[in-house]
């Protein structure tokens, strides 16, 4: 069983970290700096967690797999964004499985607001991921093992 996780998270200082992990190890990452007033406290995170026996375990193959499944993931992310926009209880992290991910493959969207954000704020973050999925993936830089 291989796991591939895409994550995007935002800090209090506005910095955003986006990355991909394979079996728990970060292999791709990009950090967008926030304000000069550095604060690493997390504001929210969104994970897209994929698992399956036939998922690739090599870095670029994992990126390609995520790009190849863009339609499925974009639709799933928008679905959760709509759900959040409708005002569901968001007092604890939520997770939603994307249906029809393929035989033996599970894709789950997990998100949480650490501070008291409105569900609508996370919906915006999800919309951004859905709208820029391929762009975000292509921008990620390969991490050398020592930098992981």
């Amino acid at each position: 069983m291989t796991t591939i996780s895409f994550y995007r998270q935002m800090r209090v200082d506005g910095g955003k970290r986006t990355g991909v992990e394979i079996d728990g190890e970060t292999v791709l990452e990009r950090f967008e700096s926030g304000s000069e007033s550095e604060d690493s406290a997390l504001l929210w995170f969104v994970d897209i967690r994929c698992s399956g026996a036939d998922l690739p375990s090599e870095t670029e193959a994992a990126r390609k797999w995520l790009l190849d499944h863009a339609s499925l993931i974009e639709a799933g992310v928008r679905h959760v964004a709509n759900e959040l926009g409708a005002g569901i209880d968001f007092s604890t992290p939520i997770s939603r499985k994307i249906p029809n991910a393929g035989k033996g493959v599970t894709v789950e969207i997990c998100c949480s607001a650490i501070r008291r954000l409105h569900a609508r704020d996370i919906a915006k973050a999800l919309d951004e991921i859905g709208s820029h999925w391929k762009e975000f993936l292509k921008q990620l830089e390969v991490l050398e093992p020592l930098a992981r």
Partner: protein
Amino acid sequence: MAKRIFDTSYLIRHWRTFPKKTERTPENFRSWSERLIAQHGSRRIVTPVYIEMVAGVTSSDELKLAHAYLDPFEIVDEGKIPKGDWDEAKCMAQRVAPKGGKRQLGDCLVRAVAKRLNCEVLTLDTGFPGR
């Protein structure tokens, strides 16, 4: 696991929300923290958080529960905090937030280690000054 480190405030709140109707056994506390880890996609803590959690217990029975609760977490600094982290923590300790408020040793160290490891901090602390 994603680059997120739990701080003590986060774990204490979670510890306190252990379901009242569930028996307070080490097994159940371990399951309780495993649930937090699964929800947040991270099992990372640092040594000061482990120490603060253990230091907060008030009986030997509670210590057993704390050990069970903390067991699933990964202490990412492996108990080794280099001088650079202490220097960074010292800088953070000298920042004063606009609204005032004191900084704690543990908070400064957690953030210093997190910075070195390019991680973000899962915290409920809202008074920590940026720079």
